[in-house]
């Protein structure tokens, strides 16, 4: 089992992705936690820009981080399959190229938030994505997440 995701792992992502010029955003509950949401999660979710150039940079960065990607898996990441779940590295990571409820990466990037150098989706986008996914676990977390969004906006 991979280690628990923690601040040092997030720093590794931030720094390695920056070196490889990967365009990405933290999304989901992991993104909200970076913004200050007090809750628990198990996964780090990254929304990556779907382009060949970004996919190549992303695959290289993941390999450098220690993810054991086969040639076929690297090709899938370069191609930008909508959802890739990685449990073959130093920590678990979900890559999302087309999150529910968000039209384009560019749109999400335009109003993203930077926290300690971590690029994070705006809370409105995190909520939109969870509303569109509409899983049981999303419905459970949405009332508290909306309350956090309102609190966060008041304190900006």
């Amino acid at each position, binding site marked *: 089992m991979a280690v628990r995701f923690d601040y040092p792992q997030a720093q590794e992502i931030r720094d390695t992705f920056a070196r490889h010029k990967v365009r990405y955003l933290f999304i989901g509950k992991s993104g909200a*936690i970076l913004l200050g949401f*007090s809750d628990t999660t198990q996964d780090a979710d990254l929304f990556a820009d779907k382009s060949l150039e970004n996919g190549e940079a992303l695959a290289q960065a993941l390999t450098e981080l220690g993810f054991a990607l086969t040639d076929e898996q690297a090709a899938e990441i370069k191609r930008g399959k909508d959802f890739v779940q990685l449990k073959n590295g130093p920590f678990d990571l979900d890559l999302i190229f087309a999150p529910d409820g968000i039209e384009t990466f560019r749109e999400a990037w335009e109003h993203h938030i930077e926290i300690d150098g971590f690029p994070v989706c705006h809370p409105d986008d995190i909520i939109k994505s969870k509303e569109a*996914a509409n899983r049981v676990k999303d419905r459970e977390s949405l*009332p508290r997440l909306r309350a*956090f969004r309102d*609190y966060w906006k008041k304190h900006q």
Partner: protein
Amino acid sequence: MNDEPASEQQLREWEAEFEAAARRPLAVRMRYSFIRTYKPVLDDAPYRSFDTMAEYREWCEKNLPSWLGYGRSV
């Protein structure tokens, strides 16, 4: 819990929690927030990929225990 509006009392409690969290450094918040437990089926493969989110959601519905909450119904 369903996706329903929270009560005033619940909102006040959550706001107090958000304020407490805001006083902690990011590294501490993350230490408290990211947990690690085994999730059956989901954690049993080192790599999975799906062409579309719809395919991923369908796979979750069909293959994961409902109590994990990845499906749209319990």
